[in-house]
């Protein structure tokens, strides 16, 4: 039994069958990559895990519990965090505040009325957030307005926010897209380190094969809404169909 069990999921958009009959099992404490051509349905599939979309058919079980029909915040509180393909951050707040919100969400749950405490007095939250920012190498930017950062930085911030929640399952939709090579490598290291330290399961979508092959323990290849193959990285690399449909010369 995987921590995430996806059975026969299908999703239609008007005339387009974006997903059909997707079966997937993500094992606890592994990094599972989902790759595939553009428009294959990878992001759509992720959307079904976090409550952004409800699939037409099939089931999605997290930790033995169905997530279908739950609100995004409920799913998150069950332990699933997500990094988006285009960074979603709190643009008007500072970097530090962005991360602190995640820490509050972890500590206090979906809603807690605490109108009179002072943010600055929440020592543990402040420390956690600072630690997280140090981990992702952004501590010197903690007072920056999040919206005025470059895109690579925004993506790193979003990742920091998700990691600060210490989720059981972390969903990453192209986490290193647009990142400089050096930062990509740092990110790979960071993810590896975190996984070791915190027993995190990760599902990662990525077009950068360097990232995929450095991290993934299993890979599912999605094409036209259905899994083409699922296998170890070594086998995928050599798989002729995958080469043709997706990897091209990169392999």
């Amino acid at each position, binding site marked *: 039994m995987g921590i995430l069990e996806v059975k026969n999921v299908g999703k239609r958009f008007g005339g387009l069958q974006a997903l059909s009959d997707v079966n997937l099992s993500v094992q606890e404490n592994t990094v599972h990559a989902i790759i595939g051509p553009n428009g294959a349905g990878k992001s759509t599939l992720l959307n079904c895990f*976090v409550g952004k979309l409800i699939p037409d058919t099939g089931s999605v079980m997290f930790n033995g519990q169905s997530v279908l029909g739950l*609100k*995004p*915040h*409920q799913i*998150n*509180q069950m332990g699933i*965090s*997500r990094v*988006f393909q285009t960074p*979603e*951050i*709190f*643009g*008007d*707040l500072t970097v530090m*505040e962005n991360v*602190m*919100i*995640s820490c*509050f*969400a*972890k500590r*206090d*749950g*979906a*809603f*807690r*009325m*605490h*109108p*009179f*405490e*002072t*943010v*600055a*007095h*929440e020592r543990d939250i402040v420390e956690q957030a600072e630690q997280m920012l140090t981990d992702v190498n952004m501590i010197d930017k903690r007072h920056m307005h999040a919206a005025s950062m470059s895109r690579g930085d925004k993506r790193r911030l979003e990742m920091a*926010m998700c990691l600060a*929640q210490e989720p059981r399952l972390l969903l990453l939709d192209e986490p290193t897209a647009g990142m400089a090579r050096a930062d990509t490598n740092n990110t790979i290291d960071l993810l590896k380190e975190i996984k070791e330290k915190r027993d995190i399961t990760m599902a990662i979508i990525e077009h950068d094969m360097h990232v995929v092959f450095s991290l993934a323990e299993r890979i599912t290849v999605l094409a036209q809404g259905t899994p083409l193959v699922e296998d170890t990285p070594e086998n995928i690399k050599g798989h002729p169909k995958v080469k043709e449909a997706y990897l091209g010369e990169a392999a």
Partner: protein
Amino acid sequence: MKMLGLSQRDTTFLLIVVFLTLVTPILLQPFPEGSGMATFNAGYPDLMQRFAIFGIFAIGFNILFGLTGYLSFGHAAFLGVGSYSVVWMYKLLGYNVVPGILLAVIVSALFALLIGYVSLRRSGIYFSILTLAFAQMSYNLAYSVLTPLTNGETGLQVYTNDPQVLMGENSPTSPHFFGIVMNESAKLNVGGWEFTFNNGYYFCAIVAILVFYLSLRIFRSPFGLMLRAIKTNQTRLNYTGLNSRPYTLAAFVISGMYAGLAGALMASMDPLAGAERMQWTASGEVVLMTILGGAGTLMGPILGAGFIKYFENIFSKINDNMLHQWFAWMPDGIEDFLIGLSHFFVGKSWHLTLGLLFMLVVIFLPGGLVEGGQRIAKAVRNRRSKGDGAEAQTQPAE
């Protein structure tokens, strides 16, 4: 110095606000009685009470709009509900304001809970129009079929044959706080100046300081942080495991309670509740106050409220006699011309001045009056740091 769980800066800020509020009756009375400029004095009870009351209204509105970005166009409904509650308490129990104020806050909270619960299902303009629709419905009903509750367009008043069961033999016959009668004042004459220290004003002012302190705490709290997060990116908030609905609803109810409290104080100062205070123009006014002063800032809404109320009460009162008095020293032709010109801007045309000022402020001070203040402060600071040497040189010459 830190106090009451506030940071050093906030404590200073709060103390300044407290000080200013307490000396308002003196500050607003800068011109001697009988002088030509006495019209511009604003230190009389009714207006000072309004500053405090509308300040409270705007502070509350800002908790919703300034922090979450949800623009309610129906907050006047809560104001009205607050007023009606208080007058009903006068009618049933007696003129002590306390039961009425408590009831007003409770009733407006319930009312806000209801309207907020429904309206917050939508966001942006759709939310604004929902709140507007609710408030307009309340207003229209208060004006017509709810007349038995509201006394229609005349406004709800106390009649001599009302029960007033708690009225003792020698209880005051106008609103009071355990015997402190609201419309009583102490007057102080110093030279040509006359200062009025009115019980009602100080009552409102103390309440205003209390709720300002509360809003300061809310702004600095995790709750306030969540509200600001809602304004920037609700999607992210939801995917961070936070449920935005209870947060917005709480903000809505809190700001509804502030509005109810403001309405209650209005009826505490003048025991009549008219339906017009629920009309959309009243809701629009608090929106304007907040934006004009600077939405999302602590001090802005209060400044905005003061600004608008000052114009409404002072500029509208300037009439031809006064203009003649002011311009009398000029040659006749010019005097007539100036008086003619002034007709556009004062007296019954005071709205024109207000409209122009709205435009000027928003064009030149995008952050509202608060931003204007900050710019001045900055300019002064710059001048001081740059100009120190220069001043030292020029000073001996003087």
